[in-house]
């Protein structure tokens, strides 16, 4: 009996350590999602102030973009969202945050009913958060960038040298960018953003700034320690990004 149950739990553990394996132990189901959602309804009052601050900062930034790029705000509103746009945005709230484990997974309150699917990107007003993993009707789980199995393509802002964004499981403030070629001119304080090489995130989503860097063991690539723009311990309002052309891109790869 012991070995049977211990074996089952080991199986679940191994599944959870491999990326996107089908499993049914996740918090995007009716029961856990429901409980987290109702608790979050109460908890969200406690950090209303800081979240409002974040949102108004973003509004300020977007408004200055809008004015400076000469858009007319008084024109007749037409739903031009779908014309020539390759990314679609959805808003959502984090109802369960996690950052102290080595495989952190968040839960959000949008799901299949809001046409959220696996492999959509999740960002906040400050930068990257993660990738949608499992969805139920009303909830979805997000593989955080603070997850040792997460691998996202990212690059330096000033040049096009790209590498893989990973996490070593130590501090929720820092992530690691590996496989940056030795020839790249890396400096402390440089900005790192997503590269747009995968079909999940568009190019230019901010990630963090270079804190320190060193050559790896083979001395061919840099390992960069970067400070994330997001405070992963305090996130609530997020945006989900859908790449409308994902299926086309994937078809191209499979041909």
């Amino acid at each position, binding site marked *: *009996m012991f070995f049977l149950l*211990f074996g089952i739990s080991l199986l679940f553990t191994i599944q959870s350590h491999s990326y996107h394996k089908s499993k049914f132990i996740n918090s995007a189901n009716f029961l856990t999602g429901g*409980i987290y959602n109702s608790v979050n309804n109460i908890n969200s009052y406690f950090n209303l102030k800081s979240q409002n601050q974040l949102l108004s900062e973003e509004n300020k930034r977007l408004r200055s973009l809008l004015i400076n790029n000469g858009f007319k705000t008084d024109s007749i509103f037409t739903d031009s969202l779908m014309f020539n746009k390759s990314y679609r945005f959805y808003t959502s709230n984090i109802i*369960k945050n996690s950052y102290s484990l080595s495989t952190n997974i968040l839960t959000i309150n949008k799901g299949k009913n809001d046409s959220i699917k696996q492999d959509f990107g999740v960002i906040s007003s400050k930068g990257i958060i993660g990738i949608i993993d499992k969805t139920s009707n009303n909830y979805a789980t997000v593989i955080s960038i603070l997850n040792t199995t997460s691998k996202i393509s990212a690059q330096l802002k000033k040049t096009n040298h790209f590498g893989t964004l990973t996490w070593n499981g130590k501090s929720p403030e820092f992530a690691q960018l590996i496989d940056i070629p030795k020839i790249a001119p890396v400096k402390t304080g440089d900005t790192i953003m997503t590269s747009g090489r995968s079909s999940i995130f568009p190019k230019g989503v901010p990630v963090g700034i270079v804190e320190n860097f060193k050559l790896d063991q083979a001395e061919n690539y840099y390992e960069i320690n970067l400070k994330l723009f997001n405070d992963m311990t305090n996130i609530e309002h997020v945006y989900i990004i859908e790449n409308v052309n994902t299926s086309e891109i994937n078809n191209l790869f499979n041909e």
Partner: protein
Amino acid sequence: MNNIFSVHTVRFITLVICQVLILNHINFMGYINPYIYILFIALFPIKNSRITLIVLSFLIGLTIDLFLDTGGIHAGASVFIAYARPVILKTSFGTIYEHQSIKFNTVDFGSKLTYFALLTVVHHLVLFSLEIFSFSKILLVLQKTLFSSIFTILLSVIITIIFSRKSK
């Protein structure tokens, strides 16, 4: 019988809710969380069969896993301590265990502390090894085990003192 059953159901639900909604948000120093749901396993009556305890531990672990998206690490660790509990009972209580007559309210404090400490350390060691799942980070496992164990032991002793019925 019915009374014992309902007591344990209530304890099961309360500990899971407490663990998931309160204790997992402590994150003291970034990663230190107490895991007091193992009190359910620790305080389970000794006379009941071993299979029942193992199945129930699996259930409580799996429920925690469901909430925390951690695969099967809590289930694994809980089943492990449920399986190892007789050995731990024997080492910490000695001869009283042989007579199957331990009342957790009446045993002396020292052996109770040893019992909780052993159970917690074993549980956390399995838990964090499964969570991190890599031999190269063995130091991180030991570090997390040490600090979280201290926190858990402290909290579970306090809880048992507060909630123990005074035997008059």
